[in-house]
């Protein structure tokens, strides 16, 4: 663990299990963005998952066990930044609920909750990040993840940041606030329903004529890209952090290294 540099706020990066296991480049992009705002970024090795799969399945005992680990691993930072709306909301909204009858842990959970931020929320509202050297040559549409929008009230922040990216044109879908049908384990339990919900989402994305879809939640992105690919679409799907950090060398989600050259507009 690196030593805290004087006057630089220490930020614990909670990568989330999906970024950790499926798309590490989002983690690196997140770290770069936080660092660029003058923070010292630390990635605690003791992190895995925020506990949403257990919590949303009704297994509060399992969720609490995981939550305690997260609380201990991140308690000493000034900020905890998460590149996902649902995982950030799990910590800031649902941890206090989980421990509502457990005085000591409730205190710790609340303490962690108030210093935990979703990435675009942190960049736009806390750090007031303005300087982005990034450019992106493409037409982008943005999907609001349900947890970001309705549990964390994040709507303008990602748009405000995307406006600063040179060459990037943002076109809003009429249904940008509509659920993509992921819902964590919901999409595994009820894949037929999920499939129909994402089809509606995709119709809206296609109607924008954008060549790139961005969001701040890898769950939604894997779900939407999974259906786009199955339908043979060439729309590129990326986490917003990759574009903001100018780290788009990695192929878009669901595109192989072989397809890098062909998956264009």
């Amino acid at each position, binding site marked *: 663990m690196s030593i805290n540099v004087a006057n630089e706020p220490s930020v614990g990066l909670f990568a989330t299990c999906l970024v950790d296991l499926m798309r590490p480049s989002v983690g690196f992009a997140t770290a770069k963005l936080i660092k660029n705002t003058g923070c010292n970024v630390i990635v605690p090795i003791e992190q895995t998952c925020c506990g949403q799969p257990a919590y949303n399945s009704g297994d509060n005992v399992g969720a609490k066990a995981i939550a305690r680990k997260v609380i201990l691993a991140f308690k000493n930072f000034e900020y905890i930044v998460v590149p996902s709306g649902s995982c950030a909301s799990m910590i800031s909204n649902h941890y206090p609920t989980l421990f509502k009858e457990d005085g000591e842990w409730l205190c710790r959970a609340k303490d962690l909750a108030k210093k935990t931020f979703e990435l675009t929320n942190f960049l736009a509202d806390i750090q007031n990040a303005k300087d982005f050297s990034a450019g992106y040559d493409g037409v982008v549409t943005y999907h609001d993840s349900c947890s970001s929008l*309705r549990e964390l009230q994040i709507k303008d922040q990602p748009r405000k940041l995307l406006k600063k990216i040179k060459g990037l044109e943002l076109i809003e879908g009429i249904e940008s606030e509509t659920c993509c*049908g992921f819902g964590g384990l919901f999409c595994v339990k009820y894949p037929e329903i999920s499939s129909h919900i994402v089809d509606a989402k995709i119709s809206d994305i296609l109607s924008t004529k954008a060549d790139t879809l961005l969001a701040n939640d890898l769950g939604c992105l894997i779900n939407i890209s999974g259906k786009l*690919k199955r339908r043979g679409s060439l729309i590129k799907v990326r986490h917003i952090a990759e574009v903001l950090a100018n780290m788009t060398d990695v192929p878009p989600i669901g595109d*192989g290294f*072989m397809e890098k050259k062909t998956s264009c507009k």
Partner: protein
Amino acid sequence: MDPTTENFKTNVRKAIADNNLSIALSKLSEGFPAQRSKAVNRLPEFEDLRDQAREIKEHVLKNLDFYLEKFESRVLESGGKVHWCRSAAEARSTILRITRAVGAKTVTKSKSMIGEEISINEHLEQHGIEPVETDLGEYIIQLRNEKPSHIIAPAIHLTMKQVANTFRKKHLHLAPERSLNKPRELLEEARDELRQKFLCADVGLTGANMLIAETGSIVLVTNEGNADLTYSLPKTHIAIASLEKIVPTLEDASTILRVLARSATGQEMSVYTTFCTGPKRSDDLDGPENFHIVIIDNGRSDMLGGEFNDMLMCIRCGACLNHCPVYKVIGGHAYGWVYSGPMGATLIPNLIGIDKSHHLAHASTLCGKCEEVCPMRIQLPRMLRSWRQLYFERHRVTSISRQLLKIWSFLATWPSLYRFVFSIIIAALVSISRKRGRFKKMPFFSKWTKNFDLPVPEGGTFIDRWNRRKQL
């Protein structure tokens, strides 16, 4: 009707395979949500009204006994009768007793969800009394022997063509050349048929959108005016309502009316809003000679003060159904009982028990749109999670998913082991298909990969790669 909530998965498959249903539901998504949004934007104080409406219900639920007793004494003063029924069975026999006492053969009925809940039509039929639904949607589904698929638009699952076919099959006098291609023509056909029924009914059975404690009045809200003919033409009016429909004053009723229609259909007010107080008075020109109000508990009082207390604030506007991504795909019948959508998934387990309805709470993405549009700000996702927790504690979650979850939760609390196990899995997946970037099929996820491509992990875990980079 016996609930089929236990067969939810089969119901879903049937619903998804039904083309007429998906055509009908696609119209729903275009209609009500857009209308609601326009209505809300036209009324700057809408959000304040929601708060006020919620406060009224919060207050009422804390003082339910007081307001119900006040309502009772006002009804008695106005010459009506009040019947308290603990269960659906008690309510059914009370209604049957009243209809028999006046020698009724035909009962006209306006739309009532509590009527569906207690299966009053079946009960009357079994005892030789003909119930006639007078709401157009309810009338159509009664002809088809179906249940409502939406709490305010009961026949929303049907296309116009299906309705026309139903009329041709059931209205035996209907001339083959009569056109039934337009909504207006269908409406006129139903109206011709119903007019006679209205005139010869012995009892009018209505629900009640609200009960007003201050005046002993009931509030009836419709767009077709059918409730007004239902209650005012026969000699006997029976209104049925669950006990949480009570509000203290006329003023409170008007606050709730201001959010009700806007949330439901996007209308400022529904076309007909009627306040009925007791039977016909001596100087009234018309109205029923007898007025009975049947107040039904059927599980509600057990919800008071508990985890699901707020569900008693629901005013049955249907906004949560109209905006629910799951409802829009499967419609109402899949939920397997009279209520559906997020409010159904939350309410039903309170009424028929979690053993029979445990699928419903899981069939939600917890997207939160329902709470966003609920005029009473009911925290539906929170309560769906609470049901999931109760099922889990009662071991109702299937064993395979439970075992997988246990393994995941165990690994997640042991970071080194977690990293070791997943590094191996990731390396294996990457070596198989890095170039292609995605899998068309995946064991354990085959149901998902039937419709989706699963992306191949990028390679390595972020934590390992970060630490390796740091050491360089």
